[in-house]
């Protein structure tokens, strides 16, 4: 490989690609060519940096300069200032909102200070489309160690000792799963990587596959070695074209280098990987449903036992792990089980990747040690609530999880504490809600998702959730009665107790958790037909405060349905029969004259 003096890393994650990061890369290359610097400075499109809020991100090495919200038009200026003149381009550096200082080095950013990157170790550092860059960062050395120095039982021992638990949601000990599959006797076994990330608002698996696909391939081969499988399958959402593309390139390169295929590294071990496509069904995150889907059938779950470890894909023993779980494996082998187990809490070891989103300043992908508190995540890493509003709750675990309120801000986050708090880890979606979010509407939002995604096999899930949804709709329409709240609780418990798979068993969690934590809000909807957050349209009216209105006509000009009348510099008013309650006037008014009642 050529020696470069400087590297320009451009984020090539889906978020930044949507903001033209590919063009940014091209512009850099063209500009460097103009100056004859193309041989000295390398431009790389990397995986996700995680700091999506300020994307597209451009990072320049070796000095770690971190440019945010870069546009293709900014490129010539960056090259002229930074590369040619050696001065950092101040206006694109990250602005610390508290101190109002520009930060030149990403190590000085609060967003990164508390993170420990294991699963995301290579995301944003390497070109995911070049296997040599992965190898240069100890890639495939773990596989080499396993094949040449260790027995399968020893490797499984290591994974068990590390305390690694499944990152897809359930938290089942990974080493134990491998051991169970190893013990099953069969002529053919399979390793499956679950990349069917269905939780709306979680995108860590996709980012790992886009930013560091080889780490997953390497881990799958290690797993195959341990359980005695020579075939691996990645089950991935068809909605992730970029991840699929990079995965295909990675598989091709690994075969070329003899790291997949027959007689890997001359050890006689055979292992190859194929891609299978999901077609958009949340329930396929469940192991048995996923396996049925891979077999070309409807993705409906079946009763366990038999577990996939005994009877899985094509009736053969199958080990299913999630992308993030796999991404941890090579590091555990390289650095040792003890090292991994030294991070985290007593029962949850290592780190967890969270997709931090919602009403928070720093939306992005973060990897933090287990045991960190919500307060640290939201205020230190996340930079606090957007627009200076009040923190209300954080929703974890997606449609299967629940809400955590202020009182949980200082609880150390791990699998067990989240369950005890009425939520769950899930795949790691973390949606921050401010005081403008109505918790009844949030519960309804998740229920709507479950309704669409229920496979329809079990009656409690198929019909029970529909009834739950209808009751919630009644409440948000202002037609609810006190008895409905008891009905919600009773029905939720029945659905939990009587559904077959994880989807049904957890689907009422958003309802139960909001009932527990925000009962007053439900009561307000039911008893006085008001929505405290002002979000439920049927329960609010927009009016204009005569004392505050200056007659600036801003609301009049922005109303999409012409429901506002009034003369310039005179009092404006809203014609209620025409108003569609879109809230534009409320947002636009500079004098707080539009009231929600």
């Amino acid at each position, binding site marked *: 490989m050529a020696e470069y003096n400087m590297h320009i890393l451009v984020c090539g994650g*889906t978020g930044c690609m949507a903001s033209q990061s590919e063009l940014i890369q091209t512009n850099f290359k063209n500009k460097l060519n103009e100056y004859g610097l193309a041989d000295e400075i390398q431009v790389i499109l990397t995986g996700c940096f995680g700091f999506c809020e300020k994307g597209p991100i451009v990072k320049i090495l070796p000095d770690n300069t971190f440019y945010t919200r870069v546009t293709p038009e900014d490129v010539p200026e960056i090259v002229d200032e930074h590369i040619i003149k050696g001065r950092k381009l101040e206006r694109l550096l990250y602005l610390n909102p508290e101190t109002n200082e520009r930060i030149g080095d990403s190590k000085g950013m609060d967003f990164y200070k508390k993170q420990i990157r294991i699963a995301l170790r290579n995301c944003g550092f390497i070109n995911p489309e070049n296997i040599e860059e992965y190898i240069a960062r100890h890639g495939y050395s773990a596989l080499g160690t396993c094949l040449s120095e260790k027995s399968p039982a020893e490797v499984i021992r290591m994974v068990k000792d590390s305390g690694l638990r499944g990152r897809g949601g359930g938290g089942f000990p990974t080493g134990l799963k491998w051991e169970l599959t190893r013990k099953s006797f069969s002529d053919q076994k399979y390793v499956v990587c679950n990349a069917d990330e269905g939780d709306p*608002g*979680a*995108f860590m698996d996709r980012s790992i596959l886009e930013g560091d696909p080889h780490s997953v391939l390497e881990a799958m081969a290690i797993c195959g070695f341990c359980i005695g499988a020579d075939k691996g399958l990645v089950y991935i959402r068809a*909605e*992730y074209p970029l991840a699929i593309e990079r995965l295909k390139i990675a598989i091709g390169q690994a075969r070329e280098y003899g790291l997949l295929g027959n007689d890997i590294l001359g050890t006689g071990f055979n292992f190859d990987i194929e891609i299978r496509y999901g*077609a958009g069904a949340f329930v396929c995150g469940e192991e048995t449903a996923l396996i049925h889907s891979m077999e070309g059938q409807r993705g409906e779950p079946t009763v366990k036992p038999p577990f996939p470890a005994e009877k899985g894909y094509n009736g053969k023993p199958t080990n299913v792990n999630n992308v993030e779980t796999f991404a941890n494996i090579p590091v555990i082998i390289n650095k040792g089980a003890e090292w991994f187990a030294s991070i985290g809490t007593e029962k949850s070891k290592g780190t967890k990747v969270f997709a931090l989103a*919602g009403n928070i300043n720093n*939306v992005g992908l973060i990897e933090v040690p287990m045991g960190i508190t919500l307060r640290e995540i939201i205020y230190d890493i996340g930079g606090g609530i957007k627009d200076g509003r009040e923190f209300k709750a954080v929703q974890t675990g997606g449609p299967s999880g629940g809400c955590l309120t202020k009182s949980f801000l200082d609880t150390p986050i791990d699998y067990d504490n989240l369950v005890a708090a009425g939520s769950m880890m899930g795949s790691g979606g973390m949606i921050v809600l401010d005081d403008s979010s109505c918790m009844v509407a949030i519960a309804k939002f998740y229920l709507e998702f479950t309704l669409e995604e229920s496979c329809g096999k079990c009656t409690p899930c198929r019909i029970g959730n529909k009834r739950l949804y209808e009751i919630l709709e009644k409440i948000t329409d202002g037609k609810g009665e006190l008895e409905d709240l008891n009905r919600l609780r009773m029905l939720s418990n029945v659905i939990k107790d009587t559904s077959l798979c994880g989807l049904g068993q957890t689907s009422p969690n958003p309802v139960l958790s909001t009932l527990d934590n925000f009962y007053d809000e439900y009561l307000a909807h039911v008893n006085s037909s008001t929505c405290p957050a002002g979000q439920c349209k049927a329960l609010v009216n927009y009016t204009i405060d005569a004392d505050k209105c200056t007659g600036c006509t801003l609301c009049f000009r922005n109303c999409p349905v012409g429901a506002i009348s009034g003369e310039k510099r005179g009092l404006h008013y809203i014609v209620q029969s025409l108003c*569609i309650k879109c809230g534009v006037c409320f947002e636009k008014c500079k004098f707080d004259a539009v009231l929600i009642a």
Partner: protein
Amino acid sequence: MPGIKLSEKAIGLIKTICSDFGNQGSELINVLHQVQGKLGYLPAEVQEVIAKELNISVAKVYGVVTFYSFFTMIPMGEHPISICMGTACYVRGAEQVLSEFKRQLKVEVGQSTPDGKFSLNCLRCVGACGLAPVVLVGEKVFGRVSPQMVKTIIAEYKEVGASEVKSA
């Protein structure tokens, strides 16, 4: 829905795809992906051909097509509009954006405009949560969309064909 007469070419294409996958019933989902990729959608007539080729019942094909949200039995508009309804987009106002699209285009979710220009759909998380709320028109991503921007987005596509819209 009125019946569709498939062209010989389309039937030939479906047959080729099926045989590429060894006419195996277990490859049904892969076959459906390929066929939808070529034809745009999977009407009943297409499903019948696939069922025959793979030697499985039409009911089974139909069962799979309707189970997965990625497969569609109705043709998409020239410019398919998808509103991301992932949680991150939802809490940042995707619902208001969706209702504005419905109002402007006068269609419901899952429908196309009578002129076939636009179709409206929801999807779950494209993973660009930093840009929430997100709207996709074809492959192009619009980020931080507000209800006020809806009119401009539609206007951008109203007069032009799909190929003429450059990625901004």
